[in-house]
């Protein structure tokens, strides 16, 4: 059967074994180490306290305005922003509105900042810290959000004042012992331990699987050209659709094998640590499969498509950029976007916040399954065009490439 022959080809490739080693190393260094002790909630929790958010954001904005040094992460990349006079003036006006004061009053407020120094690389920056500042009691939360949105626009996006990041940045508090006990109860009773462990497992492995499969997929597709076997394959009877989908299925199945093995290890670890608790064995397999297979599918689909269309190098760059962007745009826990490739829930607790976004999570995973199948359909079209000699792929780099020197 062709499917098994394709699996065998993948199992023979060095890239696949490097993938396996990295996945297993990541599993042990991240998840296994984190889950190696019986868990108990002892952290902070994010609360939707409007007053806390407004006052916290005001302190932050006063500090960055005083230094004219704003730290932003547009698309997940670090960027420091220093504003010109015109934009500085706009921020000043917003600060006056937030504090319900005039220029003179704002100057007095700004004097309350405590100076400290931050070193970034070789450069020293003088920063200011503001504590216990309060926004005007007249200010509505809706207007506050508008101001924050405008401030974020002025800063070019990715600032600490993005609406969706406000609660996570400025409104968290220590949990009470009762809250911790309630969280723990959810962990034991509702999640049956493995439900929570499965989320943490998927969180860590999901990051790796949004990127690593692209290498294996690109290597499989590029092997035809590298071995000069393309013409032998192109001239066979098999339809392009069948060949591309068979290869794709083989990629997903083979790349899922090491994940399945790590699931078994994670389950054995859980049984060992929580031997006195009632554990749901199935959760350790069901949730990670639903969570992680779309990542493998998407990264493999991009790998196959971009390698057929451009080159293996281009496929790796595209997937690296996409997965990094997705990683940087998602909070560690508490929110799952409908279209983010990497879903995150980097805690064994906060079950409620995960369940609050459960529908988005399900939508997200199904969306990526459909998207990747669509990409593979396109790959089959490109493959058929190359096979008929009507398209030769697009060269991006090197001699004659779009970004390379002219041939």
């Amino acid at each position, binding site marked *: 059967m*062709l499917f098994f*022959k394709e699996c065998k080809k993948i199992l023979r490739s060095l890239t696949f074994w490097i993938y396996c080693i990295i996945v297993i190393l990541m599993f042990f260094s991240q998840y296994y180490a984190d889950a190696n002790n019986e868990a108990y909630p002892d952290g902070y929790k994010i609360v939707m306290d409007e007053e806390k958010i407004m006052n916290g954001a005001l302190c932050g904005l006063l500090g960055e305005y005083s230094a004219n040094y704003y730290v932003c992460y547009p698309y997940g990349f670090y960027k420091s922003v220093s504003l010109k006079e015109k934009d500085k003036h706009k921020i000043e006006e917003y600060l006056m509105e937030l504090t319900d004061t005039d220029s003179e009053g704002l100057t007095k407020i700004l004097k309350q900042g405590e100076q400290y120094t931050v070193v970034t690389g070789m450069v020293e920056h003088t920063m200011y810290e503001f504590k216990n500042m309060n926004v005007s009691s007249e200010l509505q939360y809706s207007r506050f959000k508008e101001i924050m949105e405008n401030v974020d626009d002025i800063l070019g996006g990715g600032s600490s004042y993005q609406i969706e990041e406000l609660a996570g940045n400025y409104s968290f508090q220590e949990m009470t012992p009762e809250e911790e006990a309630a969280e723990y109860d959810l962990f034991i009773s509702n999640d049956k331990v493995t439900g929570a462990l499965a989320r943490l497992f998927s969180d860590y492995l999901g990051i790796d699987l949004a990127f690593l499969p692209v290498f294996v997929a690109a290597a499989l597709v590029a092997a035809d050209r590298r071995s000069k*076997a393309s013409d032998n394959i192109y*001239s*066979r*009877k098999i339809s392009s659709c069948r*060949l591309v989908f068979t290869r794709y299925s083989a990629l997903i199945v083979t790349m899922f094998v090491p994940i399945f093995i790590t699931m078994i290890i994670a389950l054995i670890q859980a049984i060992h640590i929580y031997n006195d608790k009632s554990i749901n064995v199935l959760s350790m397999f069901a949730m990670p499969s639903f969570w992680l297979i779309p990542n493998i599918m998407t990264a493999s689909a991009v790998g196959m498509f971009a390698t057929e269309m451009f080159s293996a190098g281009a496929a790796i760059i595209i997937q690296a950029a996409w997965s990094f962007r997705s990683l940087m745009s998602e909070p560690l826990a508490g929110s799952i976007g409908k279209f983010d490739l990497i879903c995150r829930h980097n805690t064994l607790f906060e079950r409620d916040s995960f369940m609050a976004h459960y529908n988005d999570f399900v939508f997200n995973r199904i969306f990526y399954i459909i998207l990747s199948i669509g990409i593979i359909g396109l790959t089959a079209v490109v493959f058929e065009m190359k*096979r008929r000699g009507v398209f030769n792929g697009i060269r991006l780099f090197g001699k004659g490439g779009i970004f390379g020197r002219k041939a």
Partner: protein
Amino acid sequence: MDNKIIIKNMDKFYGRKQALFGIDLTIEKGMFGLLGRNGAGKTTLMKTLAALHKKKSGEITVCGIPIEKAGKIRAITGYLPQDFSMYPNMKTDEALDYLGALSGIPNKERKQRVNSLLRKVNLTEHRHKKVKELSGGMKRRLGIAQALIHEPKVLIVDEPTAGLDPEERIRFRNLLCEVAEERIVILSTHIVGDIEATCEQIAIMDSGKILWRGAVSELIKKAEGHVYTANVEKQFISQIKKEYIITGMLSQPDYITVRLISDAEPDLPNVEMTEPDLEGAYMYCLYSSGCDVKGGE
């Protein structure tokens, strides 16, 4: 379904550059040779017939199937590319089995065909060798086996003997003649000896055009009266190369016997008209078609 390949007024372009010009050919069962210099357009024509390249205009039917029906063409065509290669780490029998699977041959039947083809191409004892461990000749034999695995009606082989030693070349030619008994085999080559040993019908290509088509004997007949031999002193050789098309030289102690092509009797010592061989006839065909074939410095 007729057992012919019919090409009518076919043009092929690479971008704006025209590669094939108004090709007209009819190829019937048996060995058919396509002879031409490197860059004549033979590989382009072979790939177009294997549905690996798209023609710009004209018509091609392979055993009654229009070339546009690529899936059907692939099912009846075996193709051995110029530089046959496979995944280097695959074993010989595995490579054959894999390509058989891509041709849609059921498991059981495939195993039988792999064994019988390996026997036929004399690779049985090398079946467990990896492709990268095979010699050039063995690789070509594996190439012909993969092209035959699905028992095609048409076999297209592109420059199959280039780089082979004389023994391998003879073995390969014999193998081709054997398989041509029951199908159309198109042999593309720039080596006249390959054609001479295997084909009755040939076409000569140059610069993307068919210069001549017909039987080998007719081509030779056409060159009659234009091939001469002469004994020339060694110091005059470079001068003669500039003036005539030399098709062969034989060194003697005091002089060189040259075989050359000329429309009229050359003014050379001991000149004699001689019977043309296929090489001479081919060179005369190129010469009479206006191709630059003189070998002078």
